[in-house]
């Protein structure tokens, strides 16, 4: 087991290194004129460093004067020591900015994961139980509709209906105007209130896929011989489903959920941007679209790392639910 883990870790590390090498290469291949233009623009912003300083820092951190490979390792060394440079857009160290905003994203995504799990798994199972029945059709249509909805459109429609027409929620932002005057509980409620639409958006988008996945796997499991055995034992149908079928459906499902984590963060990039929730996604979007190289680099690295971590988690979860894997 430990040998397997070690192998898995090593592999994740290799992917991380190669992946960030590619990111680094992309950054290094950026046209100089673009970098200079952006740097010049940035330096004219209030509170920013001077143009020369910005360029100097960039040259130093990204070792732009050496070959790509040399430069990469210099950068990698810097990065591993926590030196990610200063964001051009936010004019503060990248890591500091990250620490400020990541909690919004985590909150958003965890709530979404819960909502999604508790909606889509029961629905997917129900659909599989009466394949080609009315419920199945409804669930299929609903899930495919969810998959087919572009994030921005769903968000716009939700905002239009609930924020503009009904005025139940604020259009933008993670907190209200009077957030600072509220007590702790009030602050939480305020935040929760602002998270409703983003959570609904993110959940809707992911429910579809998960529901399909649950349904497909459930159907497969329901055709398995051991389900027939369970029925032949005289177990009532709902125990057959809840116990025998569900435990087996869980095996691919946990893997799916682990893979979902990095996807959710990528997906919340758009959603956070649309609702202007100041999470890592929105911040990254703002930074990256404005050519903030240090932040772009950091965010990309973070995403790769997250993907690898989620793969590791997937392996663990898989072993946790499937005894066949546990032994090997």
């Amino acid at each position, binding site marked *: 087991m430990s040998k397997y883990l070690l192998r898995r870790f090593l592999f994740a590390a290799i992917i991380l290194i190669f992946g960030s090498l590619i990111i680094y290469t*992309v950054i290094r291949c950026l046209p100089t004129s673009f970098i200079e*233009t952006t740097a010049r623009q940035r330096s004219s912003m209030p509170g920013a460093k001077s143009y020369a300083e910005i360029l100097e820092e960039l040259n130093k951190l990204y070792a732009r004067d050496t070959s790509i490979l040399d430069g990469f390792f210099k950068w990698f060394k810097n990065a591993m020591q926590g030196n990610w440079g200063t964001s051009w857009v936010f004019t503060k160290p990248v890591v500091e900015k990250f620490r400020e905003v990541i909690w919004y994203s985590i909150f958003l995504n965890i709530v979404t994961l819960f909502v999604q799990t508790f909606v889509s798994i029961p629905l997917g199972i129900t659909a599989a139980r009466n394949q080609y029945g009315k419920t199945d059709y409804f669930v299929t249509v609903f899930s495919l509709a969810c998959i*087919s909805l*572009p994030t921005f459109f769903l968000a716009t429609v939700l905002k239009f209906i609930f924020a503009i027409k009904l005025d139940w929620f604020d259009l933008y932002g993670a907190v209200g105007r009077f957030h600072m005057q509220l007590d702790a509980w009030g602050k939480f409620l305020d935040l929760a209130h602002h998270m409703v639409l983003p959570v609904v958006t993110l959940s809707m988008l992911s429910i579809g896929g998960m529901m399909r996945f649950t349904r497909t796997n459930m159907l497969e499991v329901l055709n398995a011989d051991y389900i027939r055995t369970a029925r032949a034992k005289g177990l009532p149908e709902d125990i057959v489903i809840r116990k025998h079928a569900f435990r087996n459906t869980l095996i691919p499902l946990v893997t799916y959920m682990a893979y979902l984590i990095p996807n959710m963060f990528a997906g919340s990039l758009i959603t956070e941007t649309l609702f202007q929730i100041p999470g890592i996604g929105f911040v990254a979007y703002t930074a990256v679209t404005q050519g903030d190289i240090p932040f772009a680099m950091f965010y990309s690295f973070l995403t790769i790392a997250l993907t690898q971590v989620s793969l590791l988690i997937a392996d663990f979860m898989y072993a946790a639910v499937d005894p066949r894997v546990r032994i090997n």
Partner: protein
Amino acid sequence: MSEQPILNNTPVENPEPEIRLDDEKRVRVLSPGLLIWRRFVRNKLAIAGLIILASMFIFSFIGGLISPYKQQQVFRKTDTAMREYASAMINEDLRYIVKDGEKFSNIAAANFVLAKNNKRTTFDYAGTHYSFKAGAEDFYEIYSLTEIGSVLMLGKKPNFDLNEGETLTAEEETAIAEAVKTKTAAFELDGKQFVLRRDGKNNIISVTKPIAIGTTLIFDASDREGVPIVNNYEFIRGAGLAILENESDFTCGGQTYAIVETDDKTTVYRSGSEDEPFATISNLMIRATSPDVFLSTDFKNAFLDAAANGQRAFSLENADGEPVEYTITRTHNTYTIRTASLTELINMYAPPSRSHILGTDSNGMDILTRLMYGGRVSLVVGFVVVFIELIIGVIVGGISGYFGGIVDMLIMRFIDIFNAIPFYPIVFILGAIMDTMQIAPMQRIFILMIVIGLNGWTSIARIVRGQILSLREQDFMLATRATGIRTMRQIFVHLVPNVMPLLIVQATLSLGSIIIIEATLSYLGIGIKYPYASWGSIINAATNLHVMTNYWYMWFPAGILIFLTVLGFNFVGDGLRDAFDPKMK
């Protein structure tokens, strides 16, 4: 036993039946195509998806052809707007009205102003001598002088030395002599003006000829017919002189005019029609902004009344008897009069109507037409990207699956690394670069297609590889090797057709997600740019809160189209997957 006699109660006619029970012809089965079709149509959603997709294609590709509008046709509309109707100012500048057939150049006029300011009565320009008669502050009659000779006073007796061809009557001579004596510079005799100018002892005699009027007064005719008369030199001179001399009437062109002076203006009536003002004279200049418009006296009077009372607006009936509202704004001594008038505008944000079923957008283009052309872009981008994905995916996945071993290992690891690279940040950076570099919109589309295609090929490659790996293990592939069939034939006759169904399914499902990605990028302003439209870039309008709130028809239909198209692809893909799935009964 079979030799036994046939019994009566058994059918004898047909001892050997046409078809044996175990003959496979006895029971009809589903043909391979029908088998797939049956499974496909069992899924009603797949049919719905097909219909949706067909409508989308017709809408985008045929709709664009039958649409009466072009993709980038900008629509205008006529609308009432407060436009400048007239302006008024207190005139302090001299205007010069030149008698017909005479010349009075600008430089001469400048010399005139100089002379006037220096209190001289004569001035020269280009060898010509001029004089003027200073009336009131604002009315000057300007003459040109013609020398007719000179007079030398020898004692008391004038000695005339006339130019050739000039004559003086005795009266005139007497008058001249008198003037010389009294040192009068100018006098008039029988309507003829004489000007004397000292030249040493000599006095040069000139006769004057009126050539122009310089005045700050504004002469306005009351109606359009009066304009040529009123603007005539004779009329202005007549009226001006009459005012100067406080006469109550004057004659011009055989017509007698009466002048009535009030506090702030002077009105001229034509004799015979005293109740109808013929012209007004004032120092207020009111001019219509458009040369076509003639301002009536009523209008001017109404304006003057309003201006005098400090009003900001006034109302007046127009020729048709309808009331028209005018507003007045004043800056220094200039008034601007505005009124609502019909004008042509770009037809922005037009609500849905008969001619624009879904209204127009912020560029004044027909949204429905934009949607049709946008659909083309979205669908074409989708197909091209899928094509790119398929080509790369099938080649890489095929190599990986067919050759296996170390090749497979390397390719799969490469795919792992490739998959780890986050897509959106890279595209955002790319978008920023393209913005900075000002890449042409068409090139942008191509770059976009390649980037999205590069993002998606790995999943196709994985699927192809997996499928080929599993097919390779099947006995029929082993049989092709055992029978010595060439590798190419193994791949293209036995392997590829079996991968096709899955590829078709995957391509269909990918199309949906590609359209979403393209739309998302376009929505964020990174993708398709004006003047090209895609459904995503049309919804981009909704990023403007004002548009989102007030003009739902600008973004909602495009969103619905994207949604329906992707849904269609997903429905069909799902149906195909079920249809091709050998596990399905």
